[in-house]
């Protein structure tokens, strides 16, 4: 195992430390950690011009730690930058899991006075994720769920006149996505991925922003605990079947031995992102974004992947 920082004193002030950050080779006290955390999120939002005065932001709120912390951060930012926030929670219909995080989402929105819209798979598609996976099998659960969630988030954010959708992807998610796309030889997907979406523009696509893009998942959990944000530390029952879970474990093992591996993957991706985006624009620029014959949403084929998927289920 890689050695944790040897000192238990804060690197900045010498007071008792609350956390070891191996990727920075520093221990920090609660006050300096939260200060560093908040300034990193704000810097990310500023650097990628994620937020503009007067915008209406739909916060994709699952009720897990990442989206709850992002909601708190955006709420804090909204005190100095006039932006309007509302949250969208998707209830996929996962027995014994989503009801708990849904409760957290409702509680946090009530506390911060942020309007919340709950949208369910059952109401929109006539089936829950649980019932869908009984027929489809659990192996591709995250792919199905992801397509359905993205579809609903985009559709309802647009319906509610949002300028942007804020997604709680953290730097661990980013490193995993980069590795997964490399391991699957799907580099074009990376051209459409980033802190800010928009490689393919269409009036029906709402821009997605990721303020936690450069923030490690463990830091988010620590911040939630330090700030007294009551989070459910629970795992989606389908997550263990996903390819992402394999990549997550692989990267965490590498991180333990070679600290900062995950952030280095994110940085390497960002250094090449422009080239990959240009590649997508060159190829896709000649193609027209179509409207799905079945649901009318934007897509690259005659029938979108969601409608194809639901038709086969």
């Amino acid at each position, binding site marked *: 195992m890689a050695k*944790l920082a040897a000192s*238990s004193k804060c690197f900045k002030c010498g007071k008792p*430390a*609350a956390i070891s950050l*191996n990727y920075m080779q520093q221990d920090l006290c609660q006050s300096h950690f939260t200060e560093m955390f908040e300034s990193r999120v704000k810097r990310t939002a500023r650097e990628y011009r994620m937020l503009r005065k007067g915008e209406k932001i739909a916060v994709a709120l699952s009720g897990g730690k990442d989206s709850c912390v992002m909601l708190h951060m955006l709420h804090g930012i909204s005190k100095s930058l006039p932006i309007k926030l509302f949250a969208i929670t998707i209830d996929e219909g996962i027995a014994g899991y989503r009801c708990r995080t849904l409760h957290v989402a409702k509680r946090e929105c009530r506390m911060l006075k942020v309007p919340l819209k709950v949208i369910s798979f059952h109401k929109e598609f006539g089936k829950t994720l649980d019932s869908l996976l009984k027929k489809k099998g659990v192996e591709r659960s995250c792919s199905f769920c992801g397509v359905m969630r993205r579809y609903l988030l985009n559709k309802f954010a647009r319906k509610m006149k949002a300028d942007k959708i804020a997604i709680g992807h953290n730097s661990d998610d980013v490193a995993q996505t980069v590795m997964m796309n490399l391991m699957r030889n799907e580099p074009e997907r990376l051209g459409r991925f980033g802190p800010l979406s928009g490689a393919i523009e269409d009036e029906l696509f709402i821009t997605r922003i990721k303020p936690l893009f450069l923030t490690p998942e*463990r830091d988010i*959990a620590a911040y939630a*605990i330090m700030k007294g944000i009551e989070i459910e530390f629970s795992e989606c029952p389908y*997550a263990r079947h996903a390819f992402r879970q394999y990549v997550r474990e692989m990267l965490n093992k590498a*991180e333990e031995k070679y600290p900062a591996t995950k952030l280095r993957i994110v940085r390497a991706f960002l250094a090449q992102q422009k080239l990959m985006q240009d590649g997508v624009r060159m190829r896709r620029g000649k193609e027209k974004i179509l409207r799905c014959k079945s649901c009318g949403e934007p897509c690259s084929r005659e029938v979108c992947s969601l409608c194809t998927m639901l038709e086969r289920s």
Partner: protein
Amino acid sequence: MEITVDGRKVRIRSASTVADLLGALKLNPEETLVKVNGKLAPGGKRISPKDSVRVMRVIFGG
């Protein structure tokens, strides 16, 4: 020494640190946070049998 982790008794070397504890439990520090006597603690924090230790797994899918 014997220490209680999330209600379970765990045997570790005396004068151990949080990092030693995670090593003894074969837990990846990248996936966990540790509270000692109710407060988050860094890897170098020394722990004694009198301490109440809580190890939290905080990296999840979903």
